[in-house]
């Protein structure tokens, strides 16, 4: 076996310094993507920087305007956090239905984002909640909103010397929901997923954010549809206009894929279940 | 005589204690001093021939003890439960993705992994057949021995034409059942070793130690008594451990090196290497009289048996015999075919040919019941076997036919009068 260098920094500063000094470093979070890639030889590593000892990355902190989720927070941690369940119900649902216990206990939200799979479950939720990513490097801090990060991925994607440290979600009091369509209940990678966050007043939509995953290279928001929903009654959210809008958005995004005919239909049901989880979320949560 | 206290009482499995404590020994849990690791390089093409292999380069790699090709097999080069057609190491034509080309024996797992990666093959690739239709087409390449039809059986009873004349309703459909993989939880592993008494020993999780012994003995040109198969705990099988898989390779490697040798598959190799449940195409035409009695059935069942025979004959025979379901049908014409293609070979899996045909026959029953406007359970009750019924193949059911009682129970749940 070739020799591999393994670092396990205890402090973020140490990790950032290592990232700065090391050519070609591989950051190890929960390993549920990375270790498979290494074992299947899809990825060659020379230096591994294991983030699992850095306590600050594992915390969830709240202030008046936002919640900050450390990149090393696991999906199990997200499930167990009362504020996530109360105020970010979509993220709670996403974590609850993520893989199976063994994976939830290791897999981190940061790894899910940086792995940048089309089907990453947390990404549409973060997009719908208007979340931002915080990257750190020797050059300082870079903050970018999730939608921008993925819509301009080639330019904005993580740089080799950066580490994702936090995900910030504004505390806007959105009702939020999430639904994933998988081939089975557990351990299913999404065929399609959808996240909905909204604000309503007396049955009228004030604001809605809808994000779809696994229907394109990266998850995306359907802003055109969001706009037409504003100031409409809640019932409009399940109207044909909205559903056909979603169908068209999916068709446009994956026109040439063999899964298109299935996904353009399925997206409607997935969206409606995500919406209903958001509206019922207040009661459940 | 001692009373048999086990009958009628729940017993604790004798092997369960070892299993709940993690002490049960599966082949990969065994290690022997001086043990080597062996693995096969498998073809990446479905049909063709090897032109060149860098065998000499592989021999020189670090940690490589020996590289074995078909010329080094002392005995039979092929094995099979009925027909001896599966190559231990290919000596002529490659017929599927996953055919074994080279056996590489190394000092360590890492050296083996590396050596397998370094194998370079130049192939001459042929145009293969991948559907039942293509395999049966005139002029199709012959994947089997003399024909692509490995097996053909007919089951006939009564007068089909007359039967359909009596029909008030007829439904006619074609059904497809897909290939299925067993995915038993413990991937294949075998250890070959020369025993203290000089016998060739193979530790393996197998469904048939006695068959394995024969095949290993044939491969090594030994007498059956010179081979000992030791069955470990078996981590699931479901039919896929009926054919030889790592057994001959482990034995051959031990025979050549005179050292214990372990062959261990990962999940991917496990899936590539062993048999599958037959994908089937099933044409069905079924007729019913106005009074609700079935009067005629015609069925043609094609099983894609893949590159090798395995149990294809027996599986398709069973499909033919089960094609009419548990129903009394006086006029029958059923045909079943096992057809060779360059797909993964199909063999035994849970149900052995009896699992696919119910999809077709039961769907036909539902459709006929609907046409008659009769409850589907009631329709089945009217037509199902009872003691004394004669099956399509002429078997008289002398006892133990309980389907009527089953239907009665089901109907009572639904408050349905039969």
């Amino acid at each position: 076996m070739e020799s591999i260098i393994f670092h396990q920094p205890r402090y973020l500063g140490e990790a950032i310094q290592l990232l700065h000094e090391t050519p070609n470093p591989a950051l190890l979070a929960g390993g549920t993507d990375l270790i498979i890639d290494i074992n299947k030889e899809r990825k060659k590593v020379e230096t591994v920087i294991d983030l699992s000892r850095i306590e600050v990355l594992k915390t969830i902190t709240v202030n008046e305007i936002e919640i900050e989720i450390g990149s090393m927070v696991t999906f199990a941690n997200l499930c167990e956090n009362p504020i996530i369940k109360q105020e970010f119900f979509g993220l709670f649902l996403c974590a609850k239905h993520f893989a199976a216990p063994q994976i939830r206990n290791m897999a981190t939200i940061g790894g899910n984002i940086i792995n940048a799979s089309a089907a990453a479950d947390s990404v549409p939720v973060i997009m719908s909640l208007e979340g931002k990513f915080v990257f750190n490097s020797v050059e300082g801090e870079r903050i970018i909103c999730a939608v921008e990060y993925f819509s301009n991925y080639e330019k904005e994607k993580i740089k080799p010397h950066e580490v994702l440290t936090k995900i910030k979600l504004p505390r806007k009091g959105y009702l939020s929901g999430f639904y994933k369509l998988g081939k089975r209940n557990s351990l299913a990678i999404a065929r399609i997923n959808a996240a909905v966050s909204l604000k309503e007043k007396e049955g009228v939509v004030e604001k809605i954010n809808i994000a779809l995953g696994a229907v394109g290279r990266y998850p995306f928001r359907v802003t055109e549809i969001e706009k037409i929903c504003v100031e409409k009654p809640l019932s409009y959210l399940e109207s044909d206009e909205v559903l056909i809008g979603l169908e068209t958005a999916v068709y446009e995004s994956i026109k040439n894929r063999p899964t298109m005919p299935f996904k353009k239909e399925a997206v409607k049901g997935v969206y409606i279940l995500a919406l209903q989880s958001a509206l019922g979320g207040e009661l459940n949560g | 005589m001692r009373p048999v206290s086990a009958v009628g009482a729940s017993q604790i499995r004798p092997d369960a204690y070892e299993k709940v404590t993690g002490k049960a020994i599966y082949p990969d849990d065994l290690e022997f001093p001086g043990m080597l690791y062996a693995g096969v390089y498998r073809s990446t093409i479905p049909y063709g021939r090897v032109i060149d292999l860098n065998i000499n380069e592989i021999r020189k790699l670090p940690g490589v003890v020996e590289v074995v090709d078909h010329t080094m097999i002392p005995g039979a080069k092929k094995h099979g439960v009925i027909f001896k057609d599966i190559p231990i190491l290919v000596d002529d034509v490659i017929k599927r993705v996953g055919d074994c080309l080279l056996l590489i024996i190394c000092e360590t797992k890492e050296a083996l992994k590396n050596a397998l990666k370094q194998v370079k093959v130049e192939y001459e690739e042929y145009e293969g057949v991948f559907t039942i239709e293509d395999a049966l087409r005139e002029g199709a390449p012959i994947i089997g021995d003399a024909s692509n039809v490995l097996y053909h059986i007919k089951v006939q009873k009564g007068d089909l034409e007359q039967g359909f004349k009596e029909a008030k309703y007829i439904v006619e459909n074609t059904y497809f059942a897909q290939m299925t993989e067993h995915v038993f939880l413990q991937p294949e592993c075998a250890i070959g070793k020369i025993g203290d008494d000089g016998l060739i020993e193979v530790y393996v999780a197998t469904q048939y130690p006695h068959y394995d012994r024969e095949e290993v003995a044939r491969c090594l040109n030994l007498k059956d008594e010179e081979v000992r198969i030791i069955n470990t705990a078996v981590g699931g099988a479901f039919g896929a451990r009926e054919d030889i898989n790592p057994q001959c390779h482990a034995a051959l490697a031990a025979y050549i090196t005179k050292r214990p040798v372990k062959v261990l598959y990962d999940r991917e190799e496990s899936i590539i290497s062993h048999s599958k449940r037959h994908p089937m195409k099933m044409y069905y035409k079924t007729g019913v009289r106005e009074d609700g009695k079935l009067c005629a059935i015609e069925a043609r069942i094609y099983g894609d048996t893949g590159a090798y025979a395995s149990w294809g004959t027996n599986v398709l025979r069973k499909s033919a015999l089960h094609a009419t379901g548990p129903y009394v049908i006086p006029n029958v014409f059923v045909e079943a075919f096992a057809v060779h293609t360059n797909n993964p070979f199909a063999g035994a899996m849970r149900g052995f040919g009896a699992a696919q045909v119910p999809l077709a026959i039961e769907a036909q029953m539902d459709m006929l019941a609907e046409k008659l406007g009769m409850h589907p359970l009631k329709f089945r009750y009217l037509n199902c076997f009872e003691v004394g019924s004669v099956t399509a193949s002429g078997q008289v059911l002398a006892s133990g036919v309980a389907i009527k009682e089953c239907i009665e129970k089901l109907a009572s749940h639904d408050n349905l009068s039969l």
Partner: protein
Amino acid sequence: MVEVTITVNGTSYTRKIHPLMRLLDFLRDELKLKGTKEGCGEGECGACTVIMDGRTINSCLVLAASCDGKEIITIEGVGGAELHPIQRAFLEVGAVQCGYCIPGMVLSTKALLDKNLDATEEEIKEAISGNLCRCTGYQKIVEGVKLAQTKMKESRGEACECGRS
């Protein structure tokens, strides 16, 4: 090579290992604890489940190097001279068939019941959802977990009684 110290079933082991060695290989090859099984090598089947600091993980997806200072429980650490009530229950209801999933099933069950002895059927199914059984024995396994709950509650009750007298 890196040096790690990992506590497995209460015993601390220090070894110099390759940094990319999986925890599964550390247990099986270094410590010769063969009860932890490999079924898929990619986190899908759960045969390699062990408990790390109270939580179940797939030992095929975790580097041993990352486990420095951690506490691991494997099937060899469940029960002792006597079977653990979970093992006893699995045995009695006939939850064991080929046995290859069982070490992982027992550990997933233990992680659940150690935290929540009153788990509902839904919670039981969720807790073992990362463990595949291909013999299709889920029904009996769930029954086994339920019987284990009863047994563990009984033995807890007995322990209390002893304490009082």
